[in-house]
């Protein structure tokens, strides 16, 4: 439950992508996204129930046959690899921008990958065990910072409501549904390893989703309340909002707490994504163990990440305009196709009656 929550919560700084699209109505778009993605959660739950002891790559092979299954599996491997690289360099950028401005981003990314690689070699169980303290700490920091920002908040900043063209709401909802929320599809690779009942797991998935998405909502709503129509001017609006908190000389620069927590959450997300990528690679090649592939997949994640986007502006443009369409294929289209095909295959055949 906390692993799911941490995974979503690590995307709470995504307001920088969402803000230029929906401006002061970003909070509304997040709410739309939360409601719409409940159907995605239902779809993933159904797949988990239909194939209780199989991960996504195995599900694809069973549903579409070996050849087509391997092709779809390879596409998912690319998707996991891309997500890991993007998040890795997001972490590097954030750390460089906020705490370690003289350290090259490559060094930060390699260090993160090395720690993640060690964690994966020890088993993902170890990492998921840390999700509870990570989540509790992040919620405490989030609540504290929102309370401290309260004096800076102006609720008139939420007005006017629903003043944008309808297309902007569709774009914003699509963006928030696919980029952070729909990425939960990666948990279809992990669920078979979770040794608890499927109904209990469904409950944990749902509550984890609700907790994570509400944290994202809280961050975005507080940013709007503090920054108003200046929200889209900043690369990291939440940090700017926190920078405005000033409780005397001893209690300024509160954003450092949030940065530390956010780095922890992003590290958690990268480790989960890295594990899923290595697992998918091992599964695709029918390798006996994934442990000997950890470093080499890490090397590709790093090298591939260097080529993705030349600068953060291009990254933001791509995420706002095209990425939601690409991600929809992996988060909705293929899982839905699997669900439909599996249902048809499992449907009881009509019995032939004589005469």
């Amino acid at each position: 439950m906390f692993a799911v929550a941490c995974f979503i919560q690590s995307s709470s700084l995504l307001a920088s992508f969402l803000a230029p699209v929906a401006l002061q109505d970003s909070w509304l778009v997040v709410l739309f996204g939360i409601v719409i993605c409940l159907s995605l959660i239902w779809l993933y739950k159904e797949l988990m129930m239909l194939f209780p002891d199989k991960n996504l790559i195995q599900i694809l092979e069973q549903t579409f046959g070996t050849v087509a299954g391997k092709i779809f599996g390879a596409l998912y491997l690319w998707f996991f690899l891309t997500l890991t690289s993007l998040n890795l360099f997001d972490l590097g950028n954030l750390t460089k921008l906020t705490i370690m401005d003289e350290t090259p981003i490559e060094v930060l990314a390699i260090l993160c990958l090395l720690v993640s690689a060690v964690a994966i070699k020890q088993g993902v169980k170890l990492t998921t065990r840390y999700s509870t303290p990570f989540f509790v700490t992040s919620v405490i920091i989030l609540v504290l910072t929102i309370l401290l920002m309260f004096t800076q908040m102006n609720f008139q900043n939420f007005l006017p409501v629903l003043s944008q063209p309808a297309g902007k709401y569709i774009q914003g909802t699509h963006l928030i549904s696919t980029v952070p929320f729909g990425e939960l599809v990666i948990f279809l690779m992990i669920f078979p390893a979770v040794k608890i009942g499927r109904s209990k797991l469904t409950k944990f998935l749902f509550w984890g989703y609700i907790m994570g998405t509400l944290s994202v909502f809280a961050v975005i709503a507080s940013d709007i309340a503090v920054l108003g129509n200046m929200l889209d001017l900043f690369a990291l609006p939440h940090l700017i909002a926190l920078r405005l908190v000033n409780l005397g000389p001893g209690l300024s620069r509160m954003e450092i707490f949030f940065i530390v927590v956010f780095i922890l959450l992003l590290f958690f997300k990268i480790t989960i994504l890295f594990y899923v990528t290595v697992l998918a690679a091992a599964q695709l090649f029918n390798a006996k163990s994934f442990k000997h592939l950890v470093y080499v997949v890490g090397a590709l994640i790093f090298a591939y990440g260097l080529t993705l986007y030349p600068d953060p502006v291009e990254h933001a443009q791509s995420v706002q305009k095209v990425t939601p369409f690409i991600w929809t294929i992996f988060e909705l289209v293929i899982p839905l196709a699997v669900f439909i095909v599996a249902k048809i295959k499992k449907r009881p055949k009509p019995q032939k009656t004589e005469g």
Partner: protein
Amino acid sequence: MFLVLAGFILIALIDLIPMFRQHSKNQIIAFFTFFCPALAIALLVQLNIEVPSLLLLLDGLFKAVGLSY
């Protein structure tokens, strides 16, 4: 350049030797499937040769078919 090569040699030494000892053909194939592109991209980036971004290529493709905002 030296650091890049040293890093890749280290990875190969750590993981390839046990795989050859275990005669695990699938694992060796999987290893080289990732090792070769990773090494190629790392060397190209190190030599300041521009590597086209796959995501930007996809962006162009999706825009061309009208799937963009």
